[in-house]
């Protein structure tokens, strides 16, 4: 579904992505692991069109996304739940959702989708008039996910959704990720929490210093000794 090939993105002279290629399969959860500073967020921002790559291509079902504005990319069906959530703090929960549907003009359908989000995330219904900035971290993450879904994306990109959240909330987020995927959403997930990711993802990539250094299934990932040591630590029963 989403094909990234030989992508190079640089900040001035420093190349954060040094020729990244990967494939996100339709209706699966694909997870990108990697340490801090590996270039994971840069990759997400490049796919979303916020950053311009120096070269390479990003294709969504055959359409080239490189060179399109972020707004066009959203219209093509890619939505990013950014790192640190970035909800609109001075807008109500409902307004955040409506902003998520900014590219759409089907008013009746938008209202149906808002209702769907409220059903999936009951907390948001309770707080629909509240300003997003006053929500808890977990609620903001739910809102960020719901906001992204409001554009009816073909691929949902999620940049470290578990960042800074309490373990229980992380578990909730991951169960929502599985649920969304069961309903047919293609998900491309960036994570540092490899234990949680192992439980939901179908396909893994490992990124180190701007390059993809591993590709495989959860089984292969768990077997790889180097990855075991670096990212999974001594095996514990993950929460």
């Amino acid at each position: 579904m989403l094909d990234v090939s030989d992508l190079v993105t640089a900040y001035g002279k420093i190349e954060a992505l040094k020729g990244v290629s990967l494939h996100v399969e339709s209706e699966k959860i694909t997870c990108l692991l990697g340490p801090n500073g590996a270039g994971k967020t840069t990759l997400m921002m490049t796919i979303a069109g916020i950053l311009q790559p120096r070269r390479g291509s990003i294709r969504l079902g055959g359409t080239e996304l490189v060179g399109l504005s972020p707004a066009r990319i959203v219209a093509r069906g890619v939505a990013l739940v950014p790192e640190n959530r970035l909800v609109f703090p001075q807008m109500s929960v409902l307004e955040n959702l409506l902003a998520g549907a900014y590219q759409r003009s089907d008013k009746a359908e938008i209202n149906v989708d808002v209702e769907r989000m409220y059903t999936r995330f009951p907390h948001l219904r309770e707080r629909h008039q509240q300003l997003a900035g006053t929500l808890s971290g977990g609620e903001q993450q739910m809102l960020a996910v719901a906001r992204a879904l409001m554009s009816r994306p073909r691929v949902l990109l999620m940049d470290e959704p578990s960042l800074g959240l309490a373990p229980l909330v992380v578990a909730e987020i991951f169960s929502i990720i599985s649920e969304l995927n069961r309903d047919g959403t293609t998900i491309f997930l960036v994570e540092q929490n490899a234990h949680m990711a192992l439980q939901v993802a179908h396909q893994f990539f490992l990124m180190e210093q701007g390059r993809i250094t591993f590709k495989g299934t959860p089984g292969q990932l768990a077997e790889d000794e180097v990855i075991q040591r670096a990212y999974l630590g001594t095996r514990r029963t993950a929460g």
Partner: protein
Amino acid sequence: MVDFFQNTIDGVMIGSSYGLLALGFTVIFGVMRRLNLSYGPSIMIGGYLGTVLYLNHGAGPLVVAGAVVLGAAIAGVYVERLCFAPMKAGAGIASMVSSFAIWMQLEQAAILVLPRHTYPFPPLATGATLEFGPFFVRIDHLIMLVCALGLAAAVQVTLYRTRFGLALRAIIGHPVAAHLVGINVRRAMLLAFAAASAIGGVAGFLVLAVDQQVTPMFGMWATLKGLIAMMIGGLGSVPGAVVGGLLLGVIETHSQWYFGPQFRDLIAYVVLFAFLVARPGGLFGRAPSPDITTPQKA
């Protein structure tokens, strides 16, 4: 006592023009988080366009008003394209200095077109006044007040009731996130800039029609008055802009009445300074966010 109330009325009337100027400023600053020093000079360019039409073609007040608003909006777009759109995140101070450079440019352009120091500007309602018991209100002042309140309401409704307003508030909240939900941020910013300059144009037309003259110095005057009223009212607040303007007008009229013309501006600046030190958020604003135009912050 009659004097006191008459002064207050006059202050509110004059202040409504400050409020209008602050309104445009507030929209630009709210959306961009950057200071457009060329705001006043853009309005001045509109004023010159209006005067040229008036002097050379005998245009009536409505045509002149349209020309001022259009001229201000066009000059505003020019400033946005040159000083704001190309600047990267974190270059807020470069935008500000750049808009100052364009201020100099616009001022000289006006002088090239009309080299004398002042030119006549058509009045709106010459000296006509309404009487309310012992009090007088000039009709052109009253139009100014109505326009200020009406436009403030229109801005507020646009911000909170329309799709465009939703986009602007999303940009104000988080420019990157606004991109991510599919808002065309650059276009929305350009539109907001043009609209804000047009609002300034309305203010400019009304003030010039009351003064019945235009000079290149009008640009500096408009930037300063708009800026002061905006800061007193509170950065980024639409009601704050109007109330800040009215308050500035009232303070000025009373100061002038009791202490003389030189103290009018002095006391206005003292109040501004006191506000900034004691309550930086102004009347309606929130606590200041530290990195608004600090040069180094990304």
